[in-house]
């Protein structure tokens, strides 16, 4: 492990000010991805800016949206009475991330910023037409995830909160990698009155919206012939791209049937 310096930001402004343009300083949220990367020498930031004291956690329910602060832990989202009331599927998703230790440390901001192709939250962000708020702007989820571990954030840009639209119904189906328990495929289906929205994670380099399936409506019973762009699908030890594509169809049907 390489040496690094550490500071704890006391506010959003403080955090952003501590950042420089060099990219050698990194925000530290739950540390569940960043710290193992440092230990394995996959990452070597010179400075860590700890966000845990920056006042970025908390859950707020509005009339049409629910907003979750970047530093809100997975366990807190899973247990939140407000989230369970407004979007039970989102609480369910958070409760199925990793294990108890990971959920007690990991944050929504860290997960979204990390943009792991197999992470769970991105499916919900797409499925729930979320907006990613940063210190500088608002980015719609569909424009946020752009590549393998790549997103629309600029160097030093900080996620402050994620705002989800409250749907009429929603369901999350996860087919977990048996080893890592990340999503081989995760499908988040949501309905907004009679409009359906499908967010898919795990399958491809980044979470995406399966618009072709959405058009078939809530009563859909068969998706086998609906087109699905597999050009950037993942393939690994546990699941080929073909199998992932099959799972996307199976899980979408299952999620939709629960709406």
């Amino acid at each position, binding site marked *: 492990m390489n040496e690094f310096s550490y500071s704890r930001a006391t506010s959003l402004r403080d955090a952003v000010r501590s950042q420089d343009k060099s990219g050698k300083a990194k925000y530290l949220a739950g540390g569940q991805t960043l710290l193992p990367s440092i230990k394995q020498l996959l990452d070597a930031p010179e400075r860590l800016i700890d966000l845990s004291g920056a006042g970025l956690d908390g859950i707020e329910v509005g009339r049409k949206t629910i907003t979750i602060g970047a530093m809100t832990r997975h366990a807190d989202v899973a247990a939140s009475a407000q989230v369970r009331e407004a979007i039970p599927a989102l609480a369910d998703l958070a409760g199925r991330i990793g294990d108890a230790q990971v959920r007690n440390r990991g944050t929504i901001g860290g997960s979204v910023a990390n943009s792991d192709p197999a992470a769970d939250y991105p499916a919900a962000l797409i499925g729930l037409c979320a907006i990613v708020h940063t210190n500088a702007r608002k980015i719609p989820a569909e424009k946020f995830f752009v590549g393998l571990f790549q997103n629309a954030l600029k160097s030093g840009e900080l996620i402050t909160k994620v705002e989800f639209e409250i749907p009429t119904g929603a369901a999350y189906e996860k087919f977990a990698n048996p080893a890592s328990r990340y999503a081989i495929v995760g499908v988040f289906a949501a309905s907004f009155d009679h409009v359906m929205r499908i967010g898919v994670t795990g399958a491809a380099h980044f979470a995406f919206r399966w618009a072709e399936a959405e058009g078939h409506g809530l009563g859909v019973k068969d998706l086998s012939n609906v087109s699905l762009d597999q050009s950037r699908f993942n393939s690994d030890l546990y699941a080929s791209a073909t*199998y992932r594509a099959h799972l996307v169809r199976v899980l979408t049907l299952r999620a939709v049937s629960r709406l």
Partner: protein
Amino acid sequence: MATEENTGIGASVLRKEDRRFITGVGRYTDDIQVSGQTYAAFARSLWARARIDKLDTGVAAAMPGVIGVLTGAEMAADGLGGLPCGWLVKSKDGSDMQQPEHPPLAHTHLNFVGDAFAIVVADTEEHAQGAARALEQSVEVTELTPVVSLADATQSAPIHEALTSNVCYDWEIGDKAACKAGFAVADRVVEVELSNNRLIPNAMEPRAAIAEYSTGTDELTIHTTSQNPHLVRLILAAFVQLAPEHKLRVIAPDVGGGFGSKIFVYSEEVSVAWAAKKLRRPVRWTATRSESFLTDAHGRDHLTKAKLALSSEGKFLAMQVATKANLGAYLSTFASSVPTYLYGTLMAGQYATPAIHVEVQGTFTNTCPVDAYRGAGRPEATFVVERLVEMAARQLRADPAELRRVNFIKPDQFPYQTPVALVYDTGNYEASLSQALQHADYAGFAARQRAAEGRGKLRGIGLSCYIEACGLAPSQLAMNLGAGVGLWESAEIRVNPTGSVVVFTGSHSHGQGHETTFAQVVSSTLGVPFDQVEVVHGDTGRLDFGLGTYGSRSIAVGGSALIRASEKIIAKGKRIAAHLLQAGIDEIDFQDGVFSVQASNQSVTFAEVAFAAYIPNNVPTDEVEPGLAEKAFYDPENFTYPAGTHICEVEVDPETGKIDIIQFVAVDDFGEVINPMIVEGQVHGGLTQGIGQALFERGIYDDNGQLITGSYMDYCMPRADDLPNYVVDTTVTPCTHNPLGVKGCGEAGAIGAPAAVVNAVTHATGMKDISMPLHPEKVWRALQRKRRAA
């Protein structure tokens, strides 16, 4: 004795050792701190096969905190010997197996990814690791084409220049002609090609070692994570020639799981000890989890073609097995014996198959060495036998339980000479099968299958009737077959003047709970309260000699030695009691901790006798030596043969290929049981590893010999939520040749479970065969193919 009733043999006494383990005050190797200690890290091969051209240690040696950089070349120059293999297996033609050189630190060639070639010692772990990484980057090598695939290894050029091929041995057992005759008259022949997946052991505690050298006394003390510290000492003294045996002390303190992987002597403990001596500083090392994946001896890894001949009535006539076994890059300590004497000899299973012939080709590849892992050879054998039997039943459209039953060795056939060398002393296979079928509600399966169908699920049930041979023995027989160590076990019982007892056993506990079970045995035999019996193991400085724990041998061999030592204690106690009670020695009875004379109704307690032994008032020391301590070395007459039936019931989701284990029943015959709770725990652990092999685990190398499954992100261990609540029960046929009537229980679960799971899944899906691990995509694809074919 108030407590005796609930602490004696057969009682589920809570484990003594758990208080310290659960409260975090155990003392594992890595917990030991030594003043002046330094930290070691190993420079390891990044290549599956390479020749070292130039190793310049200058840069690494100058890095911050580095105290010493010691290479394989220096080790060789110091005259240290290679790591030996303890079992010489001969090929069919009578020739000895081929043994490659196995220097603890490689100095000319690197033969697998992780092969250590230098040890770096520094003031901190980080500094040592930094310098080791620098060495890995700077060593100049010529990459050579690695041999990775087991299937092609025998045809490839030898990976070791000094050997003629990659075949270690071409071994056989059984009567080939008789087997051929059996197939000639067969009504039906069932054939299968199976792979037994490579497993990575994953003990909870990684391997670790700390070595201290005393310049004053020339003594070298090594704390290490070993299942048999005396063997480590013997090998370091006699083969590696690191130090003479009387100047070496090897201590295996609390050890957090081994499953076989800590039987062996590895590069790291040798190197750490050598470095401590050379640098005159204590040197410590604890494997990272990544190092564990790369270098802990792996398990299994077979490719097998097997066939079974049956008569028109479904009687087994003959069985033929040909196996390629991957031994990895070098011969690990007992590697050669696992796919031969612990595998081929088990092919009779529970059945009276009259003719069996087994051929095994042991093969070198540029992968981590493969050696014993929980079950060691016997899971592989059970898998072959029980898959064949299952396939036979399906092909004959016979009830798999019934086909097994008609072919069982019957209770009146014991002792039973199998066609593959072993003589089973006792068993009742019908009893464990019947009991398991009942627990599993076998009769009600059809209804459950229909109900599952209604839910869109495919339900299946699979049996596995396994046998194992435990407590490897007797020494002479094993040595005739090439074993390089005796297979007895030692025990010493020291009675303190106050009557409490310290028991020394040469077996070793690394999770099994010997401190409890062995105390139960001694407490029962001597009538000493359970909590006044202390069990000591794992230190060459405290006990004479021992052979450690592996092959479910501890209670059968180590426990028997305890009984022998107890008998000697009682015999001497009687002589002392005779003096105290002024009676003839033949008049003394011993029961429940009391020596008594029936005629005069007089008695003395065990504690009083112990006191008199040390303070010999009224005991003439010219007739009875003072003191009360006895030793015994027990060499068993035969193996023990635990056996049982495992039944697995699964549901497969045809849309995704995902498998749910709905129920798992294990009925085992372990002979007499000392502590049912501990036995149940052992069965749970074994089953979980067996199910892990069937559903999840596989060590995979890519074509370049890089380990792809080098972390838990990719290597899947079974977790509690993958598993059902097990139904575990026992039947008892006492072992006929040891004093406790015990057989051993540590490996049974891992031996029986894989076949039960695969049989259940093939039953559910109607597939003929599918290779382990049964990952969902594999199952889904097989179902797709079947659907297309239909």
